[in-house]
């Protein structure tokens, strides 16, 4: 079954995730994720904390610790990444798929000058060393808007602000000229004004490089702003996906509607009542049927029978809820 409603695959998928499962010491964290990203497109991934947004991409790139059991398939071009040899993964990571993280200050090595950390990526993926690597690192710093780029190459992470550190992370991600950039809550740890600057930067580099972008975020406003496609995750599953317009204009899944109702800009006296009650279920103790049932205002006894699959709402728009008319 095609994910993200791509019936006629006009475009070859850049990366294609099928039935991705992850369990930590036997406790399931992902319960079958399907997700496609096409070249150059921006996909938003939203959902409450702990629903598996980060784990999806960490698993895809083989970055999870040893006690994680990963199943399913992740194909990049024609190449299967799950279980691929280390050398293959080392070429893919940073070379074809780059990733940046939430807290840029701790994501940079504290004892290595930031310039050298960028040069390391340039050496690994583009074979640049010495003065050539230095010049390219400088150019990348300039491109991501770091003031005094030549001087900053010699700085350590602790000597720079969070926003500058995130710019360094972005420069490092661009160093390998990736086809896909995964930005895992890239602005959560930053001040509001800096957030806007970093998001602008992400939008700009995505367009300049024709790179695909996966933006993981709690902030639906940010996703609406940057992404053309959106996936909504709940308790280790994709529960709704479609174009940004479809998700934001006509959300179908009760959970997505709840998320949108909780958005500050949309809060009116009447909608506030719709904000989602209750908490995410414990992964070790999932409800028998629809994982959202305990919190769902539309739940009925039929919802406990089995986990609903994604059904078509409209062209390219799908939701995993029994109340969607088939």
């Amino acid at each position: 079954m095609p994910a993200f409603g791509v019936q006629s695959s006009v475009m070859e998928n850049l990366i294609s995730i099928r039935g991705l499962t992850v369990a930590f010491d036997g406790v399931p964290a992902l319960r079958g994720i399907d997700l496609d990203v096409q070249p150059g497109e921006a996909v938003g991934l939203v959902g409450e904390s702990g629903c598996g947004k980060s784990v999806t991409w960490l698993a895809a790139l083989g970055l999870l610790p040893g006690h994680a059991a990963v199943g399913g398939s992740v194909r990049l071009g024609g190449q299967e990444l799950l279980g691929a040899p280390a050398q293959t993964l080392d070429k893919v990571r940073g070379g074809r798929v780059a990733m940046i993280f939430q807290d840029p200050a701790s994501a940079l090595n504290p004892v290595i000058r930031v310039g050298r950390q960028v040069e390391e990526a340039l050496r690994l993926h583009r074979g640049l060393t010495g003065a050539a690597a230095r010049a390219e690192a400088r150019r990348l710093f300039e491109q991501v808007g770091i003031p005094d780029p030549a001087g900053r190459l010699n700085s350590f992470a602790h000597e720079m602000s969070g926003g500058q550190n995130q710019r360094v992370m972005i420069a490092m991600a661009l160093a390998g000229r990736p086809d896909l950039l995964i930005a895992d809550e890239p602005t959560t740890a930053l001040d509001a004004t800096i957030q806007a600057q970093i998001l602008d930067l992400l939008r700009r580099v995505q367009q300049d490089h024709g790179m695909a972008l996966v933006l993981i975020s709690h902030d639906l406003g940010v996703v609406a702003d940057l992404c053309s496609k959106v996936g909504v995750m709940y308790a280790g599953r994709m529960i709704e996906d479609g174009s940004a317009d479809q998700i934001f204009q006509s959300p179908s899944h009760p959970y997505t509607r709840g998320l949108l109702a909780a958005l500050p800009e949309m809060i009116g006296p009447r909608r506030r009542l719709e904000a989602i009650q209750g908490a995410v279920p414990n992964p070790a103790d999932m409800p028998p049927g629809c994982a959202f049932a305990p919190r769902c205002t539309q739940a009925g006894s039929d919802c406990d029978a089995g986990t609903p699959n994604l059904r078509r709402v409209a062209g390219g728009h799908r939701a995993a809820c029994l109340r969607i008319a088939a």
Partner: protein
Amino acid sequence: MIGFLGLRLLRAALTIVLVVSFAFIVLRLSGDPAMTIMSPEAPPEAIAAFRTAWGLDRPVWEQYFSYFGAILQGELGQSMRDGRPAMAVVLERIPATLMLTIPALIVKVGIGVPAGVFAALYRNSWIDRLVMALAVAGFTVPSFVLGLILVLIFAVSLGWLPSGGQDSWRNIILPVITMSLGGAGVLARFTRSAMLEVLGQPYIRTATAKGVPWAAVVRGHALPNAAIPTVTIVGFMVGTLIAGAVVVESVFSWPGVGRLLVVAVANRDLAIVQCILLLVAVTMVTANFIVDLLYGVLDPRLRGTASTGAH
């Protein structure tokens, strides 16, 4: 940087003053050297003469200040036993001690650090369990017990190695092993936890995520960070190079500073004991100072001022 150095130096000097004062107080409080050295049956005039000769009849505070004044002039007194300058007596023992403690330090670091790194890299595997079991064994067995066991096995039963004496390099093998195992165990445990801590840091995931092969992540990204806490422990060990062999020197009848200290304490030879303590204090303080400097080299966050760039 100057302020940093100045502060460290001041602290070092203060530590030495404290150790020396402490030595003075403890030694004066713990019995009358005249009685011990002369034996209580000696004629009272002889004891009084001894006291005058060594300044023991003057008020304690006066003794304290003249003692300090003498130290500042490099005057460390004479051995009460044979009247030779205390410093000379102590210094001539140092090579013998270093002959044990330096190889022991090398063995501790050479075994302990790699063992700890491997235990961390293969966390919860049999390698990890084996290393940790050996480490615990290494530092729970007291060194005199370990020394005796090694002597029984390798000198007495098997006859492979000598149990005492110092006529060949083979003599240092058993004492060095005895002295190193505990320290290697401590270092292995410490290195392991430092390494585990570092391996869990986000920057390690960043390095892997940008395509650095795992071996290079460990070498280039994890080890330089794990070295920072590990250096502290190695620094402590460097600080014990002079006096760290007391037990082992006794077990193996090794004529080093440690044995000299034991004999001098038993004899209440104040000048010798004070001289050794001063030397120990200076070594420890120097080692600490070097550790502080190394921190600055290893950890840019401790270098104080920003090195480059505008804010």
